[in-house]
C-alpha cells in the first residue's frame, strides 16, 4: 500500500521537506488563518454540510433511550433508559432479523467478495486485449442499474411467468419461481449481488494486477513456472493488500446487506426470509411508529459496524498491513 502513503506527500514542492522557514514560523495562528481566509470560503460550506447532515443525525440516536413520539419531540419525550433495548432484544422479530442479517452477511463475504478477484484473474489471463475490453464493457454495466431495475429484470427472467418458467413449462415442468422461494432466497440475494457488482469490482483488482512488476513474472517464468503457477504465486499475492483494504472498508457496512434489495423483495418472499435489521427499522419505526425500538435496532447495527471496522483495522495492522487510518491523511 505504499501508494497510499503518498496521498498527502504529493508533488507539492513547497511542503514535501520540513525545511526551516523562520519567517513563516513567526506567524501566529490568527495570522495564518487570515492569510488563508479565501481557503475557508471553500471549506466552510462543505464542513457545515457534514456537520448538519452527518453529525447532527448521530445525536438523533437519543431516541433509542426515549419513549419518543414526533408530537412531543426530543425535549418532551420521557427518558426510559435501556428499556427500548430490553424490549428489542426480547422481540422475536429482531432476533429473526439479526439472524437473517448475519447469514446474508456471511454468505456475501464468502461468495460475493472473492467473485471479482476470480473474474479479474480470468480476464487477466486472456491473451487478447480486445476481448478483455469488450468483456469489461459488458460486465461493468449492471453496476449502474438501480436495485429496482435489477429486481424487476430478475423478476422477468426468474419469476413465475418469467423467461425460465416459460421454458420449463414448455418442457413439462410447471411452477418454477425462484423469486418467491423462501428456502433459497438468501442464495438468490447473493447471486443478485454478484450479477450487479462483480464486474465493477474487478476494476480495482485490474489496477492492482497492473501494478505488479513485470520482472516478477519474468523471473518466475525463467524459474520454470507455468501460467497457472505464475498466477498462483505472483499475481495472487500481489492482490492481497488491495483485498485486505477492501475487506476493511466493506466490513463496517457488512450488516447493511443490500437494504433496498431486500426491502423490494420482502413482499414477494415473506418476512421470515427477508427481514433484516434495516427493514425492521423501516417497517417498525418509520411505518409502524415504534420509534424507540427501531432506533435502538439501528443503533445496535451501527455499533456492531463500528466495532467490526476497528477490529478489522487492528487485525490488518497486526498482520503487517498499514491499516486504513494511518495512510489517509
Amino acid at each position: 500500500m505504499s501508494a497510499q502513503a503518498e496521498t498527502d506527500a504529493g508533488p507539492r514542492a513547497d511542503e514535501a521537506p520540513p525545511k526551516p522557514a523562520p519567517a513563516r514560523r513567526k506567524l501566529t495562528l490568527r495570522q495564518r488563518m487570515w492569510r488563508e481566509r479565501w481557503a475557508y470560503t471553500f471549506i466552510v460550506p462543505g464542513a457545515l454540510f457534514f456537520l448538519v447532515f452527518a453529525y447532527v443525525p448521530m445525536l438523533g440516536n437519543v431516541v433509542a433511550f426515549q419513549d419518543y413520539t414526533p408530537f412531543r419531540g426530543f425535549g418532551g419525550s420521557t427518558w426510559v433508559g435501556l428499556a427500548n433495548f430490553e424490549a428489542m432484544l426480547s422481540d422475536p422479530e429482531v432476533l429473526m432479523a439479526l439472524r437473517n442479517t448475519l447469514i446474508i452477511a456471511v454468505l456475501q463475504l464468502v461468495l460475493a467478495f472473492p467473485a471479482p478477484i476470480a473474474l479479474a484473474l480470468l480476464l487477466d489471463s486472456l491473451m487478447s486485449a480486445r476481448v478483455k475490453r469488450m468483456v469489461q464493457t459488458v460486465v461493468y454495466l449492471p453496476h449502474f442499474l438501480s436495485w429496482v431495475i435489477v429486481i424487476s429484470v430478475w423478476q422477468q427472467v426468474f419469476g413465475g411467468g418469467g423467461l425460465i418458467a416459460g421454458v420449463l413449462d414448455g418442457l413439462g415442468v410447471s411452477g418454477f419461481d425462484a423469486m418467491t422461494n423462501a428456502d433459497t432466497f438468501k442464495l438468490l440475494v447473493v447471486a443478485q449481488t454478484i450479477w450487479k457488482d462483480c464486474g465493477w469490482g474487478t476494476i480495482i483488482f485490474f489496477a492492482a494486477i497492473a501494478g505488479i512488476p513485470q520482472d516478477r513474472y519474468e523471473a518466475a517464468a525463467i524459474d520454470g513456472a507455468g501460467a497457472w503457477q505464475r498466477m498462483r504465486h505472483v499475481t495472487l499475492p500481489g492482490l492481497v493488500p488491495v483485498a485486505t483494504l477492501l475487506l476493511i472498508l466493506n466490513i463496517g457496512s457488512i450488516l447493511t446487506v443490500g437494504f433496498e434489495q431486500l426491502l423490494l423483495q420482502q413482499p414477494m418472499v415473506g418476512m421470515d426470509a427477508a427481514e433484516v435489521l434495516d427493514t425492521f427499522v423501516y417497517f417498525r419505526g418509520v411505518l409502524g411508529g415504534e420509534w424507540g425500538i427501531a432506533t435502538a435496532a439501528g443503533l445496535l447495527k451501527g455499533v456492531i459496524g463500528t466495532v467490526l471496522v476497528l477490529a478489522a483495522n487492528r487485525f490488518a495492522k497486526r498482520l503487517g498491513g498499514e491499516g486504513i487510518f494511518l495512510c489517509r491523511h
Partner: protein
Amino acid sequence: MSALTVGGKPLPEPVRRRRAAGLPPWMNAPPWWVRSLKTLAIVLIVLMSAYPLIYVIAMSFAAPEQARAGVVFPTEYSLDAYRTIFEGGTVTVGLRNSLWLTVVGTTLSLVFTSMLAWGLARTRQVPGAKAVLIMVLATMFFSAGIIPNFLLVKALGLLDSLWSLIIPGLISAFNMIVIRNFFMNLPQELIEAARIDGAGEWRIFLRIVLPLSKPVLAVMALFYAVGYWNTYFNALLYINDAEKWPIQVVLQQYVLAGVTIPGSLPVADQPPPPPGVTLQMAVIVLATVPILLVYPFLQRYFTKGVLTGAIKG
C-alpha cells in the same frame, strides 16, 4: 520454455501471435482445453450479464400475441406498450421528476464536492483543514441510521419535496476524496505561478484547477448522476405525493407491487390494451435508457476515476 528464434527459420505460429500482441516472449499460449474452458466461461459470463437486459428490451417491443405466449426472443414487434405508457401520464411525470433531480442534483453535488476538495487539498497550510478532513473521512465508516436522518429531514421541513433527495446527500465523502487526490496531483507549478501573478484562490480554482480536472469531474458527474437517477429508498421514505415520485418508485409500483398501469385495462369499443408484461418491460426500459445512453461515453474514464480514489484513497 520453447526457443524463441531458430536460425533463419520462420517463427512458429504461437510465437508470432504473441509478438504481434506485444506480449512478452515467455508468455505461452495455454493448451487447447484450457483455452476452450476459458472461452466457455467468458461466453457464459457475457451472456449472463447481457442477456437479461437484451431480453427485457426486446420483450418491451414484442407484439402482443408473442408476449402472451412467452417466447425466448420475440420476432414480431409493436410500439403499443410505449404508446400506452406515455398516454397514461404517471411514467412521464416520474421521468420528468428524475430528470430534474439528476440535472440539479448532479450540478450542485459537483460544485460543492469540488469546492470542499480544493479547500482540503492544502491541509498543511490551512489551519483547521486537517480536522475537517478527518471529520469528513469518519463519515465513511460511521453513519447515523435511517430514523435520525428521517427525523432531521422532517424537522427541516423537506418532506414531500424533491430537495429532500438532493440536500441530505449533497456531498459524498468518497467522491470528495477522489477529487481531492486528483487536485493534489495537478502540476503545482501552474498554480504557484498563478498565485505569484496575483490570481485569487477562486480565480485559480475556476480558471486552472477545474479545467485541468475534466476527466475526474466527468467520472464523478457520472457517479452522482447515476445515484440521483437511481434514487429509490429515500424517495420512498421522504415523498408521499405520487406527483413527485422519481421514476424508480413508479417502476417499483408498476412492476413489483403490481399496481395497474393507467391505460392497461380493457375499455369497451377500444382495441385491447397491450399485455401487462410488455408494459412492465417498457417501464423498465424507460428507467434504464438514460444510463445506457451515457455509459459508453464515460466508460473510458472509469479506471482513472475509481483508481485515484480507491488505491490512493
